[in-house]
């Protein structure tokens, strides 16, 4: 693990006794203690995550908005400064290169946050696609990223933040001061809970982490690792690149066709292929499965309908919130329709199953997400 990149917070994780793991070339905390306890803390109180492995790419200049409108499937030019949007970057054939969050920091300044494993290819694609007066620069090393997630996030952060958090709406990001450090304070996350993501300068990261830890001491806040992050996002029905998204899949396959703004003016990379895909019968559908046994459907396992393969599990895990194994899977649309009808998928005769290491384990089809936070 010596070749792995350390984040500005790796020393903190080591002092906390975290189990560290290699992830996309980075040495990251997998869990600090029980990942199930970390998951539950985020659902009921709050969790603190180091996400400094995520890629931060700045696109700036008078042509930045137009360049992103051409490079991405969304329309960043339509964002007001301070607003953020979930979007994707696709290949000319419509395949997904990565899913992204784009923050418009100012009229001519955008922050594109990419998955750690894809930062290089996203940077190259953006640079390649930038036309006119737009500069693309990889600033991943200039940021630490700390996520504070959970129902207690507001009350933990409020005493430390310069901004009135009531003014920081979901999917916005503004410059703010937290514990004396200048940060980009964003109300975004990947857990299905309310929460914040704080982009800090690397030298400030330990101080911000420590201040949040202290502020959360009486609020049930715990540090949480990548294992909990994965089960949290799975319960929330959020796709993970490499599982639900990839170069062989379009946003429409993942049920995320809404991110493709075919109505936006001008051409963009992938437009022709995606327009065709938008009007075609889908080849597969992303569905949720809940296992009836305690054996867990995992990535790559076959989904069965009446004993015959009809799809593939993309992500699966024991769900701490549901107390049952859950999975997302791509299945044939006909199966999704039939299994989704009352009786066939839920409480029916078990026509739907997952091949778990050679044994068909009955599963029920459910609509995504598995978990929605209480309003």
């Amino acid at each position: 693990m010596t070749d792995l990149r350390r984040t500005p917070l790796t020393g903190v994780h080591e002092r906390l006794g975290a189990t560290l793991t290699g992830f996309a070339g980075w040495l990251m905390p997998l869990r600090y203690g029980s990942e199930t306890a970390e998951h539950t803390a985020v659902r009921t109180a709050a969790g603190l995550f180091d996400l400094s492995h995520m890629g931060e790419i700045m696109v700036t200049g008078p042509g930045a908005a137009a360049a992103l409108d051409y490079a991405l499937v969304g329309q960043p030019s339509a964002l007001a400064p301070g607003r953020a949007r979930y979007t994707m970057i696709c290949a000319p054939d419509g395949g997904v290169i990565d899913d992204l969050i784009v923050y418009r920091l100012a009229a001519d300044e955008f922050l594109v946050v990419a998955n750690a494993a894809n930062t290089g290819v996203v940077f190259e694609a953006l640079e390649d696609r930038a036309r006119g007066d737009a500069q693309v620069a990889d600033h991943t090393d200039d940021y630490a990223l700390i996520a504070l997630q959970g129902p207690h996030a507001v009350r933990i952060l409020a005493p430390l933040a310069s901004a009135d958090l009531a003014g920081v709406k979901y999917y916005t990001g503004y410059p703010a001061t937290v514990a004396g450090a200048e940060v980009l304070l964003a109300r975004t996350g990947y857990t299905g809970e309310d929460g914040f993501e704080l982009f800090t300068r690397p030298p400030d990261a330990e101080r911000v982490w420590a201040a949040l830890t202290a502020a959360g001491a009486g609020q049930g806040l715990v540090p949480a690792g990548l294992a909990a992050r994965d089960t949290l996002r799975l319960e929330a029905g959020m796709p993970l690149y490499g599982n639900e998204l990839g170069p062989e899949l379009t946003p429409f396959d993942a049920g995320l066709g809404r991110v493709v703004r075919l109505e936006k003016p001008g051409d963009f990379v992938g437009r022709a292929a995606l327009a065709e895909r938008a009007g075609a019968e889908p080849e597969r559908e992303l569905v949720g499965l809940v296992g009836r046994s305690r054996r867990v459907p995992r990535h790559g396992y076959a989904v069965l309908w009446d004993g015959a393969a009809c799809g593939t599990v993309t992500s699966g895990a024991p769900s701490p919130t549901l107390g049952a194994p859950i999975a997302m899977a791509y299945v044939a649309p006909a199966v999704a329709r039939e299994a989704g009808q009352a009786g066939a998928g839920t409480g029916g005769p078990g026509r739907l199953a997952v091949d778990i290491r050679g044994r068909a384990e009955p599963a029920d089809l459910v609509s995504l997400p598995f978990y929605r936070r209480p309003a």
Partner: protein
Amino acid sequence: MSVPDELHYTREHEWVAITGTTASVGITDHAQNSLGDVVYVSVPSPGSKVTAGEPCGEIESTKSVSDIFSPVDGEVTEVNAEVDENPAVINADPYGAGWLFKVALSGAGGELPADLLTAADYEEFIATEE
């Protein structure tokens, strides 16, 4: 990681405790720590035959599923009902309350397979594995 001296070990991270001609089997502290939270375990039913080195059950954690390999030859005499109801006990107490099953050793002398590891050997094995 705790590696009690009095136990025998496998390279698949099971431990064995011998009392007379009965072997108690579980997974090691190192194994439970690597797996993370155990959510489900299946073990061979009482009366079934197990063979050293052969898979005889499986253990599910948040991140993965692994086979349980029998460390010994014999017949299963007892299984731990507690780990079925509360698999977390395997994480909390892998050498005690988290034991998995007991085997009546086959063979007149109840010999152990020659390739079981001592505590010292197992510690060395997990050190080189990392």
